[in-house]
């Protein structure tokens, strides 16, 4: 939906950088499979962020050199990773207790759709004949203290993925607190979506028109 050339959409990389900015020092963070994983590349070096991987790792580090790959040390996307000093291993029961029990500060996920009240659809298109596979998506959606979603705001065919009601099968209800998109950042909650940031060249009126939603900026004292 970038027919308007003046709109300075965030690149995938800038979006990951933007999300990384909101992860405070010392946070315990789970980065979902796919695009969210790239946020790790932009975590500031002067902060200690402890990455959780639901297959039983805290303190997950970046990918290893080719000759240091260990197939017993992989992330939730089954890619080889490394371990930071101070990290540890535990079993799946404890790992999902960390998630379900509200011990993870921030979980960053991708999405097919997010509703203005924070409902999340990110596990299943509902297409007939598709093999359903949920993995840890529903646990990640409802467990963390804060759930961030990062995604393009529009599908390739121009439909808004921020919606009034999700039409795709839900992953969790009212669970997303913040939505980071290539067009701007939104705060979601029981009272609906409020815009925290807009990319350059985009007005709130444009955004309302493009999404078909009645959007307003968050008050200046909103926790941005």
């Amino acid at each position, binding site marked *: 939906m970038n027919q308007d050339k003046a709109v300075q959409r965030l690149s995938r990389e800038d979006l990951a950088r933007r999300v990384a900015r909101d992860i405070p020092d010392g946070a315990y963070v789970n980065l979902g499979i796919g695009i969210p994983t790239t946020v790790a590349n932009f975590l500031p070096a002067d902060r200690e962020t402890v990455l959780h991987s639901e297959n039983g790792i805290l303190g997950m580090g970046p990918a290893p050199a080719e000759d240091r790959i260990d197939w017993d*040390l992989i992330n939730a996307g089954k890619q080889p990773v490394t371990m930071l000093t101070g990290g540890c291993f535990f079993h799946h029961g404890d790992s999902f207790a960390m998630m379900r029990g509200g011990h993870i500060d921030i979980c960053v996920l991708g999405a097919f759709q997010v509703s203005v009240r924070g409902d999340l659809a990110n596990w299943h298109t509902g297409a007939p004949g598709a093999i359903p596979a949920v993995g840890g998506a529903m646990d990640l959606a409802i467990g963390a203290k804060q759930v961030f979603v990062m995604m393009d705001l529009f599908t390739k065919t121009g439909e808004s993925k921020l919606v009034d009601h999700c039409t795709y099968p839900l992953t969790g209800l009212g669970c997303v607190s913040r939505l980071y998109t290539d067009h701007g950042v939104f705060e979601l909650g029981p009272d609906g979506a409020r815009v925290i940031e807009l990319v350059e060249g985009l007005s709130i009126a444009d955004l309302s028109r493009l999404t078909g939603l009645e959007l307003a900026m968050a008050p200046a004292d909103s926790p941005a």
Partner: protein
Amino acid sequence: MINKIAGSMEDAVADLHDGASIMISGFGEAGVPDELIEAVVAHGATDLTIISNNAGTGEHGIAALIRENRVRKVICSYPKMAAAHHFNARYQSGELELELVPQGNLACRIEAAGSGLGAVYTPTGYGTILAEGKETREIDGKQYVLEYPIHADFALIGAYAGDRWGNVVYRKAARNFGPIMAMAAKQSIVQVSRIVELGELDPETIVTPGIFVGKLVLGSPVNAGESA
């Protein structure tokens, strides 16, 4: 004298029977008890229910069991994998029943079985199609789904080292479902890369106490490029 060490993979799975429910540890390649699964294929038991995070890929492991038409039902969180063609074919033809369970509910239902709980209220899945038809309850202002334990006749587990009492330690993220599955099955069978003398494992750092292990068998070396 306690000696849980089986002389061969064949001996290790000798008690299997048709209609058995079998938990299989592993996430990705880590912690998958490859040789034990091969032994199940060779054993011939059929009409099996497999409880595992994934449902197999390629021609090995759970995929081989499905290919050989030994599996009646799969309880898992993520059957959709590259090269899951055997699962896909049997599932889409209706020959294979799938119970899709969110990964954390899979974990806590296995834990409930191992720890003798009758059921648990979990928040995961509330309001989704995976909780359809299930009992729900509001507790302290939050919505929960009632989930029942998943028990099994057998658990096949891939671990790192063990002793004749059945005490076991794991390696890195290969730990995953092993410890909780060992607690939930009537007979847990553990494949290890090293068998050690009793007392060699530090009592402070044993992850699966021998009480949860029925049989232990020596398998292949660790699944790693890097050395242990």
